[in-house]
């Protein structure tokens, strides 16, 4: 093998490599979930781990999401570093009492005695014609759980850097992996140790006229839109939040101060969602730097729909372009 400083990887390959590296680094790291061992995961994110680390550390679990997360809490209390997988984020509804009611509050309710250094990996988001509850974007609900960190990588490199950080974090992290991004997102990934600290957003595209704030796969959509506007001489920036909890407030304020115009993207239900949280944050910290009312482009206040309706539900480049145009034209 040729030594390289970086390699081009899909997001799922970056995740797989990171899990291998972290399991090799610390033998307390244990990976478990539905179909993660023998089959290597339904997206092959855990492919090959069983052969390398054995059946004590790569474990196929009975089909019971609460058992997966409830056992993770006990493992963490018992000194392990659990990296459980929710096969799809929507399935975590069947474990919400363990996730929201237990894992996220364990450190708090024991006033620091029990850390829950758990990284819960979960695929989410639309665009691949899945059955019900496989595509729901629940990040806003999850960010509303005090005591849970919510991490949303948009590039292969960030998948590595943020997953490494998550596994080493002493607190519970929900690590959200976009379904469409597993193989649809590809890019350079640094070799060797690579960490991306939480709470530091990234300018995916620098811009002066308007900022699209996005996370996870919607950063791809936003970047495409920014390119089209660039061809017309309009400088649209894309701020990739990377982590929703903790939130990089300073970068959001910077975006408002630089561009004055904001569009926020999310695939989720808008009411009570995370785009609303971003706009409230702007109101609190940067209201007087706004040149136009911020706009969100979201799913709708409906359950995530069936396949023939999902392209209408999930924000796409055309819908985002329309919103950007509106905000660019808005004048006081």
């Amino acid at each position: 093998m040729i030594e390289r400083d970086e390699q081009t990887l899909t997001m799922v390959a970056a995740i797989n490599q990171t899990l291998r590296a972290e399991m090799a680094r610390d033998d307390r790291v244990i990976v478990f979930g539905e179909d993660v061992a023998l089959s290597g995961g339904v997206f092959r994110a855990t492919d090959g781990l069983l052969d390398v680390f054995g059946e004590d550390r790569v474990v196929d679990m009975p089909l019971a999401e609460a058992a997966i997360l409830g056992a993770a809490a006990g493992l963490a209390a018992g000194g392990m570093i659990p990296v459980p997988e929710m096969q799809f984020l929507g399935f975590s509804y069947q474990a919400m009492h363990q996730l929201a009611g237990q894992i996220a509050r364990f450190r708090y309710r024991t006033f620091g005695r029990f850390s829950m250094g758990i990284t819960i990996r979960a695929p989410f988001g639309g665009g691949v014609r899945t059955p019900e509850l496989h595509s729901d974007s629940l990040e806003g609900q999850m960010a509303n759980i005090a005591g849970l960190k919510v991490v949303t990588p948009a590039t292969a490199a960030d998948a590595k850097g943020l997953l490494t950080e998550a596994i080493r974090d002493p607190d519970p992290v929900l690590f959200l992996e976009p379904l469409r991004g597993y193989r649809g997102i590809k890019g350079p990934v640094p070799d060797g140790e690579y960490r991306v600290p939480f709470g530091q957003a990234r300018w995916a595209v620098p811009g002066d006229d308007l900022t699209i704030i996005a996370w996870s796969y919607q950063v791809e959509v936003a970047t495409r839109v920014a390119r089209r506007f660039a061809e017309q001489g309009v400088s649209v920036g894309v701020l990739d939040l990377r982590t929703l909890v903790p939130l990089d407030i300073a970068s959001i304020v910077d975006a408002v101060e630089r561009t004055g115009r904001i569009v926020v993207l999310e695939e989720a239900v808008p009411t009570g969602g995370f785009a609303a949280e971003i706009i409230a944050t702007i109101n609190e910290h940067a209201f007087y730097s706004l040149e136009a009312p911020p706009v969100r482009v979201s799913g709708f206040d409906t359950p995530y729909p069936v396949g023939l309706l999902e392209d209408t539900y999930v924000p796409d480049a055309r819908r985002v372009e329309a919103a950007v145009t509106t905000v660019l034209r808005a004048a006081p």
Partner: protein
Amino acid sequence: MATPVNNEDLVGMLCEMIKARISSERLWALQRQGRIGTIAPINGQEATTVGATWALDPEHDWVLPQYREPMALGRYGPEILNRFAAWAIGHPLGGHIPEPIRVFPPQISLATQILHAVGVAWALKLRGEPGVALVFFGDGSSSEGDFYEAGNLAGVLEVPVIFLCSNNQWAISTPTSRQTAAAGFAAKAEAFGIPGVTVDGMDPVAVHEVVSAARDRALAGRGATLIEAVNYRLAAHTTADDPTRYVPPKELAEAQTRDPLVVFRRQLEDRGIWDRSMQSDAEVAGTQAIDEAWAWASNLPLQQTELFDHVFATPTERQRLQRDKLTAYLQDQQ
């Protein structure tokens, strides 16, 4: 092999049961005086809790209680009662049982702790540590999904866990006949592929014996056991409950004749290892224990800004901003 109980154990268990009953009644009175929040008495379940924990090795074995048991966990040292008193007052240190005590804080979200116990036992197995995890839950909790998921998982993983169903006959006002149509709660072990045992939960020696056997089995690498300890809730569900609305008086009167504090005391007197002066010494010691716990708990300092402590190891920027704002607000109010 399990060590059979000797006279010293019998006396020790009765002392602990007396301490638990006195603590329970003291906390009830403190609630009635408006000095603490809601509390769930343990009256009638002392033998189950004390007998079970007497079979454990506090240095290696974990206990995951529900919300009554902490007042009867003297086996794990006086700190548990201190913390429980603080928990009852509503001080955040009440949930913090310090290292290296292998006891979890009280659990309110019923049955969730059964899965935690499986995880703790799994960690013991993976780390090759010689211990078990014993988890308490009630007859009502056995209807929760987490009970079934935990039993099933423990069966598959063969981890050293002991499921102790403390069946006090009532889930608030719901009798066991409305919880299950099964022939008892231990029968559910069949579906998990683990042994299920029913024991008289009013008899600490009997409970000690079955827990010892389950522990031996677990330490030998043979996995989990489900134990149903049949006892009776002699008091209300909590200070917020009125059991006269639903507990048949005759049934309660019958159960009172089996009160473990009366029956076990008589057994020890018959053996000639207990007498009136020991009883009064034990009562003094029990009173002193809860007095000391109360004194410790009610003198703990607390800043309102501790509201933010221990959500994360390091607070987020947003939490720091909120705390600073709250601090300024509270200073303004003074």
